[in-house]
């Protein structure tokens, strides 16, 4: 029989989770990934907010509609010649008073271009977390740890990114000499090569990094702590030791609660 039992309901658990989200610092990540047939370098930051808590016995904390806010910056380079055919000006002749000149064919080699792109958005997800109680140094920590990698619906974001990429590409391509009439076709070619699936395939692994292994500390307590302060020179403070803590979701009382059981010693 534990010495202390503390329980919080779903409302209080929601407060705990939201407080934990607010203090959670997720490091910025960077790397490279496939954007359709192209490779793009990227860096991204994210934060987790909101969510509705559902406690499910015996040990699942389900967070529904949790918001992953992310900011993504990436750039990708590719050889334009690989997607649009080279273009040649025809041979032409110029009559002058001192002779007739015929110019050779001039072929335009399309350059390699780099398209930088920034995008910020939010995606909601629902994930199950499990309880993990463990000691770190002089503290007991009660964490909730995500189970698996939740599915992220990125279709809207992918469509927005693809549209934005098209605009960015048009801006980058416009100053390229002779691209003229093929400009619209080049942009269409780029976006159709990458496609929604390409963007989703690019975005998914990046954002999964931020939710895979997601862990919040919802409760933190010193193992050895003061329960009664000093009453005077001859009345020293009273300390207790928290020897063991366990956590579970209990629904036996009719309402699902997050229950902490604590064994103590003086």
């Amino acid at each position, binding site marked *: 029989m534990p010495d202390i039992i503390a329980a919080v309901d779903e409302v209080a658990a929601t407060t705990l989770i939201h407080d934990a989200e607010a203090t959670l610092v997720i490091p910025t990540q960077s790397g490279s990934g496939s954007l359709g047939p192209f490779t793009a370098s990227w860096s991204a930051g994210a934060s987790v907010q909101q969510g509705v808590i559902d406690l499910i016995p015996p040990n699942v904390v389900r967070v529904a509609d949790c918001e992953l806010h992310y900011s993504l910056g990436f750039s990708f380079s590719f050889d334009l010649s690989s997607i649009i055919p080279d273009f040649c*000006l*025809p*041979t*032409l*002749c*110029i*009559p*002058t*008073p*001192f*002779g*007739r*000149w*015929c*110019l*050779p064919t*001039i*072929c*335009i*080699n399309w350059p390699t271009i780099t398209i930088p792109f920034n995008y910020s958005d939010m995606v909601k997800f629902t994930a199950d977390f499990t309880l993990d109680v463990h000691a770190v140094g002089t503290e007991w920590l009660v964490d909730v740890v995500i189970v698996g990698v939740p599915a992220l619906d990125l279709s809207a974001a992918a469509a927005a990114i693809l549209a934005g990429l098209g605009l960015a590409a048009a801006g980058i391509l416009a*100053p*390229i*000499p*002779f*691209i*003229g*009439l093929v400009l*619209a076709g080049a942009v269409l070619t780029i976006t159709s090569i990458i496609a929604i699936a390409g963007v989703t395939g690019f975005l998914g692994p990046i954002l999964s990094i931020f939710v895979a292994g997601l862990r919040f500390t919802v409760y933190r307590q010193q193992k050895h702590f003061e329960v009664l302060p000093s009453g005077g020179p001859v009345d020293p403070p009273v300390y207790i030791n928290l020897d063991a803590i366990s956590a579970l979701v209990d629904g036996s009382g009719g309402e699902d609660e997050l229950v902490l059981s604590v064994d103590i010693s003086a």
Partner: protein
Amino acid sequence: MTMLDSRRMTYLNCFGQKFSKPGTYRYRIASSSTRGLERDARFTIEVKPAASPAEAQQHDVAVRLEGRELVADPPSVSINAGDLVLWNTPDSSIAGYVIEGEGSGWSFSSASLTKEALYTHAFGLPGTYRWLDAHHRKLGGVVEVVSPKADAPESSRKWLASLGSPTVISIRGEHADPERVEILTGQTVGWAIEEASGISVTDASLVPGGAAKRG
């Protein structure tokens, strides 16, 4: 990338020179990017007296990069008096070269056009190009490059067909005729220098104070 400047030739330019007087002409290909690497004038044009009045022949010379040095291909040509020599590079990575040579008491240069010379430029972007002679600033004009209509396949075909039709600006002394031309993107303008005092054809924006001077 597509500078209009006969002092800095690119693959979008051609420089032509008519050789009327027999003799041996030696020339070099200088470049801002390979400056100091080019040897002295080591390419030659051997001009033989014309046996009989015949139609002028054109001889093409390609400018290529060998290692870090610009070379002429072929390095020497033998022509008849009155023939034409045209230089051009097919290499888009070569930018900023100039042809300069001399012989028979006369010199020629793409950067300083004097007589019976041709400079061409293919315009790849729409816009208003004010050009002038960067050396004397007494000569200049405007090339208006407009985007072709791209609303139908027929428009594209017309545009492609128009690329084979050059526009010629004749230079005599300090006079350019016409001073203002309008072309479609992708078309070529040729400056035919009948006689001049060593001019360049240069985008006014590349000349300090040039853009203001030409308006």
